[in-house]
């Protein structure tokens, strides 16, 4: 039984989700205690339970302590079963976090699977569905895994109501990934999604992005979604390089001006551009597990976040893989997965 301390690092739900993914792919049970210790509302929240339930459904696992407010949980995975799953995630959670939890396991299943996910698709504190689609999945495809996400409807906080349709083809063994360079810039573009929010808001955001990043008119797009997918507004800036695409996002909020939202996204994109590293902070986090499953691989990124370091520690508890973080002179870091002898 692998024992985990839920208060490690940032002590959020990420440890739990990583552990669930790892337990499913390795078949190893785990026990996590001190879940969200020290938070104002310690213990499991609804969004965590949703991930636990999805994991249990995909592998027929058994869970103890899967209750709201529970500070300890024990998960014993069963064999991963391919199939057609649908998970309804309330707006408190996010479709993409649930997908992230069960995806590694479904890749290892013996047959293709489909997932129908409903709930939030563009939530703060979770990867937007577009990010997975454009940035993460192409890299996964390069490692040999075929996963398609169709964004049926967008869902924003708090109304939710989005829908994703995901097709997962099995991939017996992921190939290692080497990603040290981003390559030449191919395209930088920004889009603003608005649903139930005046298009004017989107235009103002894009105007601010254009001014800051010097984009051409053709690189700007207002995407007006049907009213019933709202209310919501997400500003996405995508930069495509020769070897990968990165994306940053910011969310419109009542009482926050369009220019302020634009400034947030611009700041993130500028930080990435200036770092020169191939992989941004959030993408780095997502790549650790596939790399560990492949057994080896490396990429260059910015200085690793606490999130990433904790994630690496948890992975090492389940898999015979260690991560080495090598700082480069220019502030970048090379992350290297090494299988223990």
């Amino acid at each position, binding site marked *: 039984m692998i024992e985990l301390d839920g208060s490690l690092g940032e002590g959020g739900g990420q440890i739990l989700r990583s552990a669930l993914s790892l337990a499913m792919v390795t078949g190893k049970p785990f026990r996590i205690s001190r879940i969200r210790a020290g938070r104002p*509302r310690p*213990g499991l*929240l*609804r*969004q965590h*339970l949703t991930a636990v339930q999805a994991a249990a459904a995909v592998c027929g696992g058994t869970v103890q302590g899967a*209750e*709201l*407010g529970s500070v300890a949980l024990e998960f014993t995975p069963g064999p991963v079963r391919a199939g057609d799953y649908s998970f*309804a*995630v*309330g*707006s*408190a959670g996010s479709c993409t976090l649930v997908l992230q939890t069960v995806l590694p396991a479904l890749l290892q299943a013996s047959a293709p699977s489909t997932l129908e996910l*409903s*709930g939030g698709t563009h939530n703060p504190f979770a990867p937007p569905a577009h990010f997975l689609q454009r940035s993460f999945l192409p890299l996964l495809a390069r490692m040999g895994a075929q996963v398609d996400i169709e964004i049926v409807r967008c*869902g924003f*906080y*708090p*109304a*939710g*109501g989005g829908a994703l349709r995901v097709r997962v083809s099995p991939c017996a063994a992921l190939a290692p990934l080497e990603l040290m360079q981003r390559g030449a810039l191919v395209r930088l573009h920004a889009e603003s999604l608005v*649903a*139930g*929010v005046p298009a004017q808001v989107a235009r103002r955001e894009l105007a601010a992005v254009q001014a800051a990043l010097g984009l051409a008119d053709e690189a700007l797009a207002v995407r007006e979604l049907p*009213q019933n997918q*709202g*209310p919501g507004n997400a500003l996405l800036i995508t930069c495509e390089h020769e070897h990968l695409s990165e994306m940053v996002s910011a969310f419109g*909020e*009542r*009482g926050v001006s369009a220019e302020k939202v634009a400034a947030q996204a611009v700041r993130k994109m500028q930080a990435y551009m200036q770092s020169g590293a191939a992989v941004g902070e959030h993408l780095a986090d997502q790549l650790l597990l596939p790399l560990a499953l492949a057994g080896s691989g490396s990429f260059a990124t910015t200085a690793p976040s606490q999130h990433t370091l904790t994630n690496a520690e948890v992975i090492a508890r389940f898999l015979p893989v260690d991560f080495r973080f090598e700082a480069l002179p220019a502030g970048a870091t090379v992350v290297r997965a090494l299988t223990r002898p």
Partner: protein
Amino acid sequence: MTKRTVIFGFIGTQLDSGGGGRRWEKWRPTVALTQQADLLVHRIELFHSGRHTHLLDQLRADIGKVSPETQVRPVELAIEDPWDFGQVYAALHDHARGYAFRPEEEEYWVHITTGTHVAQICLFLMVEARYIPGVLLQTAPPKKQQENQPGTYALIDLDLSRYDIIARRFAREHADAVSLLKSGIATRNARFNKMIGEIEQVALKSRAPMLLMGPTGAGKSFLARRVFDLKKVRHQLAGNFVEVNCATLRGEGAGSALFGHVKGAFTGAASERAGLLRSADKGLLFLDEIGELGLDEQAMLLKAVEEKRFLPMGGDREVGSDFQLIAGTNRDLRVEVARGRFREDLYARVNLWTYELPGLAQRAEDIAPNIDYLLARHSEEAGAQARFNTEARERYLRFAASAEAPWRGNFRDLSASITRMATLAEGGRIGDAQVTGEIERLRAQWAIEAGEPRAPADLEALLGAPALEQIDLFDQMQLANVISVCRAERNLSQAGRRLFAASRRAKESANDADRLRKYLSRFGLDWKAVTA
């Protein structure tokens, strides 16, 4: 396994409403409940009047999106006017009575943030009376800087015993009430204190009749008045305390005194008389020696107690009086029922909360605190302090608690005794002289009382005519009196102690009981035969 959370609540026609996308920027209590990160609502029973179908559909759809785990069950209630208390209460009451509660598996939270104030009040009453076995739920909007958040929720459990601070307050109030019932006398007799504790609860929770049993002077009337005082302090009674000893009501005038009469009801009824029952309207009626009441009056009293209506003497129209009844008796009413002298149905009616007040001799440990109380009362009435000398007090207490002091008149005797000593006190001091004099006085008083046969013993019935003929009148007189004393005492030892008190004082010890047993056996009698 944690229980499923089920919420009852009214649709908020104002708070839950809102059209278009902007509704998501608004705090909607019912929707917000399903958006809490640490709360999973399994089901909402959503009360509505059938007039807000559009809002209802919207809420169901929105809750379905933000919380797919939550089932929303619309419950249509027959409410025309949500501000009509009677309608809303009746509708909720009907719903709650017909609802299949499963408290083993489900937890019920009653949301009172939405709905009219009348609805809130009715929901509160449903929970308070346990028609809905749950707790109240209150929600509040998010603070300004956290807009878009679902706000906060809080549970209010009406089980007050769960709140320490309230429990302490109740304990204090309970202590105050008990102290009031005892007039602040710190009685020590465990049985008495337990009884008072229960009377306090019954007095405050019930309007049913009470029956106080006990020998004369045991404090029945005193206690009845204190119960009245307690209920008055707690605003449970608005009327007066009316007290009557039924032994004084025998004969013609009894009915009229109790139930009143109309003008011209009988010779001398020159004007209308309200009667004691009507004087006690909204108050408390204490009927002492209820066993002395005639059978006709008993029947009328029963009707008055059960229906709160009765017919005055000579009247043909019923009048009403809503009084609480406390009955007192020194007789065993069961025996009176068996003998046909007391109505069984009236007995059943008053015999719900029955308390037997022990006599003073059975509460020897309470004599001292009662002396303090009586002295304080005397001082107040006389306007002058009276205190015991330490030794005098000890001597008096020793006597008072001894077997020599039967306290036949109970507290009435003690009160008179203290009044006498306090009156005779010199310079406010009750000394040896006053105590000596008082003890003599009490002894003499009790000796006289004991000497008076309560009912002459029927020697013929006891011994049979032939045997009686063989006994001298001289001995018959003595035997009859000895038997009277036996019948007044509880057992052979006590009777012996009283009969041979003089020789007992002279000698170091004496077996009084044996002496009495031998005396009785000379006539072929024993304790059982004479006291049967």
